[in-house]
């Protein structure tokens, strides 16, 4: 799977590595507000939708995927999709399936931000999306363990 190191992809990668737990949790807060009928903003939902649609993209050839993220992030997203019950059929095991599911989730998230979308909402679907955002945030937070990564300790340091 080729990776193209462009500025945009680098930014996305950096954003995912550093902000994914916070972004996903913020989206969960916004979805919770939607469920409670007190929508304030859906900015994080929109941003997460963009991230989900861009982190795995098809290249010119349909069978070739370009990853903007590391394999660890793919595992995190895949686990969040499986555990929140959003996976269409069986558990995701292939990158291609992950891309398709991520694309579906991205479209669902983006549809919430459209005008009049909140009037025709499916409560169960919203709760599943909120569960997905929470799982994504939790798995990313545990996996990256940002606090420890900033400070690489020397093996001989006391």
């Amino acid at each position, binding site marked *: 799977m080729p990776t193209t190191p462009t500025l945009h992809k680098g930014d996305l990668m*950096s954003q995912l590595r550093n902000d994914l737990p916070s972004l996903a949790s*913020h989206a*969960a807060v916004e979805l919770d507000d939607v469920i409670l009928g007190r929508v304030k903003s859906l900015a994080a939902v929109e941003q997460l939708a963009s991230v989900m649609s861009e982190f795995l993209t098809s290249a010119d050839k349909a069978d070739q995927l370009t990853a903007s993220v590391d394999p660890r992030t793919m595992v995190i997203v895949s686990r969040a999709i499986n555990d929140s019950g959003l996976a269409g059929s069986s558990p995701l095991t292939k990158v291609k399936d992950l891309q398709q599911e991520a694309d579906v989730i991205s479209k669902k998230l983006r549809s919430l931000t459209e005008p009049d979308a909140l009037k025709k909402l499916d409560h169960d679907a919203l709760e599943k999306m*909120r569960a997905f955002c929470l799982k994504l945030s939790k798995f990313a937070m545990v996996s990256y363990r*940002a*606090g420890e990564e900033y*400070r690489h*300790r020397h093996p001989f340091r006391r």
Partner: protein
Amino acid sequence: MSTTLTHAISRLRSFLEELTHVADSEFPYNDSKEALNLLQVHFQNRLARLQGLDSKSNPDVVRQEAALALQALFVYLPLLGFVLRSTNIRNSFEVFGPLLRLSQDFLDVPGAPHTPTRLLLSSEWDYSPLSYPEIPELPGFVLIGLPASESSNPLF
């Protein structure tokens, strides 16, 4: 309001108070002050998010927001100390200019839409080399910590 949420808000308020206290220090260079401002904005946003939650909010959502707030404190409290130590007169302020120019020569891409490189020159108590690869809330900042234990050594 749940205990988790109350404690998380209280912790963030204390941290913001400490940020305000540190901001009153005398900064020899503007970059340290800018770093503090960025941290202040980040933690105020985080606090506003927590204050938007209440007893009707989903408990899992509240717990995750509180956990993220606590994690952010673990990450940024040592960095706040680093910024505070950048005001200390034991730092070699004469190397600030050359190190900043060197960092900008290495990292700034001419013509590219890029955050200008800024420098935090401070002191550390570590002899072993260490690095801060990416600090999400301090984009474009280079952190250099010189060993405080060697501050009396003019040859260093």
